[in-house]
């Protein structure tokens, strides 16, 4: 349902620092722009993106209207143990998307 692109290695060595990149389809409407009818288009943004590793939160970012449409976020994580990395986006108008990827740590 959700249009999400996640880029992360499938396997990693224990203790290795890996980069996780995530992109989601979203207009990130600022709430400052007039529409074609002249009235302001209501704000509709993703306010928060969080990442968990086997359920423990490892990264969180609060976004503002200054983030470009289709928000892209990249961050690093230490590969501690095999499991799932959960990514969650939440925002205006009840926007809520969760995705997870599996990572094998050798």
């Amino acid at each position, binding site marked *: 349902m959700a249009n999400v692109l996640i880029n992360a290695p499938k396997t990693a060595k224990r203790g290795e620092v890996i980069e996780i990149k995530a992109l989601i389809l979203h207009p990130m409407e600022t709430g400052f722009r007039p529409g074609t009818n002249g009235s302001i288009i209501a704000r509709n943004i993703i306010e928060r993106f969080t990442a968990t590793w086997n359920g423990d939160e490892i990264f969180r*970012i609060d976004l503002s209207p200054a983030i470009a449409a289709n928000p892209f976020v990249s961050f690093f994580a230490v590969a501690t143990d095999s499991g799932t990395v959960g990514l969650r986006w939440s925002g205006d108008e009840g926007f809520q998307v969760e995705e997870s990827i599996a990572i094998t740590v050798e």
Partner: protein
Amino acid sequence: MDRRRFLAGTATITLLPFASAWATPESMAAAIRRIVGAAAVRRGRVTLDLPPLIENGNTVPLVVSVESPMTAADHIKAIHVFNEKNPQPNVFSARLGPRNGRAVVGTRIKLGDSQTIVAIAETSSGEFWSAGADVIVTLAACLEEAS
């Protein structure tokens, strides 16, 4: 009233209503104060990577990296980014910890005008480090809906 004074007067009238609606260097300073409180913000340790000349303000790649061992005892707790001239001074606030391994955050931002971008990193010991970057924007983030 001579012509010059009349023109100067109309210019002030037309500019005033917009001036207050946008972030200014002062409102950026106030937003930074809200985050750092009374603590001193020092320059250094932070690298703010974004193109100096931007053709399209709608998507500007930005990477903030901070020198830190990222251990439990000494790591970067948070990275904040601010701007001067978008409608609001805040861009993003990221929370990090030793599980990140490297204090690097990348994203893409919108820029409404040529301005100075500031990144501030908070260490686990409560110090604040910063970096600034001047950017020139030739096409601002679009202000109107495409018709």
